[in-house]
């Protein structure tokens, strides 16, 4: 987590002062050092947990490589600064943005401009053979030739984007140029056999070319206006839970892995199975050496944490669609870590989806399979809690026992139907612990048709609409039980 924004300037300043006050022994000059520290700050701002020791590692690593080579420089920074696949993805984005802006800023301050570009003389326009250009670009993309693509991107802009005609929105311009260039992934029949376009172009290459186009357009814009546009953050931190399936699955995964880890290592050993402990001969003998070979202190095998049995019951009705997508991804990630876990989805009726998760690995496939096969929306498509509890009780009452944990995910909006609280109470009474996660802010609870209080008397209810709240819930779930009747 990055430091709170209000404290950052002072910390940044002190860090910088500390770095500059010591003599620089390595070949890096203060200018690059300062830039790298700034780069580190920017990574922190995007949520990469970056320590001073990592920056120092980067500094000690750079003199070892020929870092004036772009890829070496980048990889060296990446290996010392970004320590997980997610961080690496952020690193790549920030790297691109940061050094692009730094270069442009330097060009602006030193007054280096490119003669001709952006000034609208249209010099090469008539001379550029458009068809040849198309073929060259296609070839460069097919061969993934970075340098050639970069050069050709500039040519393409010169050929197709007359200054003054630009829409002002970079994305629109990029797409317009791409269309004019006729870059497509599907095979094109009307070109010669040896032309790479006859087999279609790789999607990855086209995407890269678009990136270069965008970068080049942005560069020209900066040169035209002689100012840097405001920096855009990559994403907002501390926002609500993801609503789209692809939005920020990484942060969900982080929370889930923590959930797994805590379940595995924490708290469970306080459950009092001492009676069943086995004597660990090896450790007992080792301990006996302190008493001259007489085993006075017995050592026991550690009691392995008992994995709680989970029953996860998840609302997938429209009122909580966005949240349920998130819930499902959590369930999906959890499914691998418990041997005994059953998952259910419900709207009007309840349906077990445990085997869907066993069969399908892909998140998208799971959501589709649930929508298709579960058959939970019977007639109206509105949640019917009373009926759901009844069906659920029938299905799982024989398997509930005091060590089972039931987690319900839903907004407790009954659509005016009977809440069936007495049935829910029966479920909660049979299970050891029952939790309710509500994707609505507490402010809206019990407002309108929400009957969360009716259920809350039988279970512990938590609001859960940010990742921080989910983490809190994780803590509660895995905390050692203080008192149990």
């Amino acid at each position, binding site marked *: 987590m990055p430091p709170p924004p209000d404290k950052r300037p002072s910390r940044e300043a002190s860090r910088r002062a500390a770095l500059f006050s010591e003599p620089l022994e390595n070949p890096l000059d203060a200018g690059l050092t300062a830039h790298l520290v700034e780069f580190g700050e920017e990574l922190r701002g995007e949520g990469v*947990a970056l*320590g001073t*020791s*990592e920056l120092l*590692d980067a500094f*000690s*690593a750079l003199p*070892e*490589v*020929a870092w004036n080579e772009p*890829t*070496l420089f980048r*990889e*060296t920074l*990446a*290996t*010392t600064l*970004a*320590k*997980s*696949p997610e961080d*690496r993805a952020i690193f790549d984005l920030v790297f691109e943005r940061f050094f692009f802006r730094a270069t442009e800023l330097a060009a602006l301050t030193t007054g280096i401009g490119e003669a001709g570009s952006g000034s609208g003389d249209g010099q090469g326009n008539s001379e550029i053979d458009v068809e040849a250009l198309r073929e060259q670009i296609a070839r460069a993309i097919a061969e993934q030739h970075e340098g050639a693509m970069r050069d050709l991107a500039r040519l393409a802009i010169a050929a197709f984007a007359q200054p003054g005609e630009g829409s002002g929105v970079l994305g629109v311009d990029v797409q317009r140029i791409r269309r004019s260039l006729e870059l497509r992934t599907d*095979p094109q029949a009307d070109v010669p056999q040896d032309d790479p376009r006859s*087999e*279609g172009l*790789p999607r990855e290459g086209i995407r890269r070319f678009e990136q270069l186009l965008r970068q080049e357009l942005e560069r020209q814009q900066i040169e035209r206006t002689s100012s840097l546009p405001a920096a855009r953050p990559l994403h907002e931190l501390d926002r609500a839970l993801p609503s789209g399936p692809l939005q920020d699955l990484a942060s969900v995964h*982080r929370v889930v*892995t*923590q959930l*797994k*880890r805590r379940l*595995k*290592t924490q708290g469970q050993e306080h459950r009092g199975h001492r009676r069943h402990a086995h004597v660990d001969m*090896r*450790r007992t*003998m*080792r301990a*006996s*050496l302190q008493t*001259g*070979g007489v085993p006075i202190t017995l050592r026991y095998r*550690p009691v*392995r944490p008992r994995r709680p049995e989970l029953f996860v019951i998840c609302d997938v009705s429209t009122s909580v669609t966005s949240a349920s997508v998130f819930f499902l991804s959590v369930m999906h990630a959890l499914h691998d870590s418990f041997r005994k876990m059953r998952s259910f989805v419900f709207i009007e009726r309840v349906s077990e989806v445990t085997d869907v998760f066993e*069969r399908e*690995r*892909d998140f998208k*496939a799971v959501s589709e399979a649930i929508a298709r096969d579960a058959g939970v929306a019977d007639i109206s498509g509105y949640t019917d809690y009373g009926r759901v509890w009844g069906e659920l009780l029938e299905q799982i009452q024989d398997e509930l026992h005091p060590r089972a944990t039931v987690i319900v995910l839903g907004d407790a909006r009954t659509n005016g139907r009977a809440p069936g609280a007495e049935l829910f109470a029966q479920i909660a009474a049979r299970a050891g612990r029952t939790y309710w996660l509500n994707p609505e802010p507490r402010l809206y609870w019990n407002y309108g048709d929400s009957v969360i209080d009716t259920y809350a008397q039988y279970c512990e209810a938590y609001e859960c609409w940010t990742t921080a709240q989910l983490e809190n819930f994780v803590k509660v779930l895995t905390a050692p039980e203080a008192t149990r009747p």
Partner: protein
Amino acid sequence: MPNLPDRPEEVSSGLIDVGYLPDDATALVAFLAIKLGKPILVEGPAGVGKTQLAKSLAETLGRELVRLQCYEGLDEAKALYEWNYRKQLLRIQAEAQDTGWTEVQDDIFGEDFLLERPLMTAIASPDPVVLLIDEIDKTDQEFEAMLLELLSDFQISIPELGRIEASTMPLVLLTSNNSRELTEALKRRCLYLWIDYPSLEHELEIVRLHAPELDEKISRRLVEVVAMVRDLDLKKPPSIAESIDWARALLLLGATDIDTKTFNETMSIIVKHRTDIDIVAERVGVKLDSGEDGISAAAS
């Protein structure tokens, strides 16, 4: 013993000599680790050659490989050191009656009675070694915490003996399948390397390095099929080792082309789950008959 490399390219060519084809990032990180004396944390899906990287590095550097395979419940006694208590007991019993207590005590907590476990071996070795701590994510957090002392200072504290410091700098590799997130403290001390499945061209080179007799055309087709299978989101996607095995199997069978029949017969080499086999047979087996173009279009 070969000299330490001065440039990333030397690491790269050294690895190629022992049959490991690294990509640029891998060679660079290995080079930096050797230069800076920092451990490498290698992550990536199963079967992309994380363990092999350690073995090959040991081979090319001419060092001994000390391997610690991690598992749930691994503790200090099995990873670091243990007192050889049987020997200690015998010693106490064999001791003459009149020997003083102090001498016996000094005696039985000497190095003669210490059983070295992998981490200790790596630290105490007179020659530099390559230490591979495999699948660190399988252990619990307590063990990770114990590793911290070793990884940052290359030393081990034994209460009865004192501190044992490394006389030579071991090259440490930790591998993880990312089945649980490692602590920040551990990550902070390591260089990070993410190895993914290789690109088509890269894997083709690897296959050709290990099965050079296989026809070029079949090799290419083989890696294309493997890439296609990996795209299917299986329980266990085929690893690089399995593509090599498959190439060798095809060589033994004298296959001239990968068609549906050959594929169905030999599929079990690369796909090892019942449900996976059904999916692959359904999605890939059919495409194979549509000819060369179908494959390359689908794989690209």
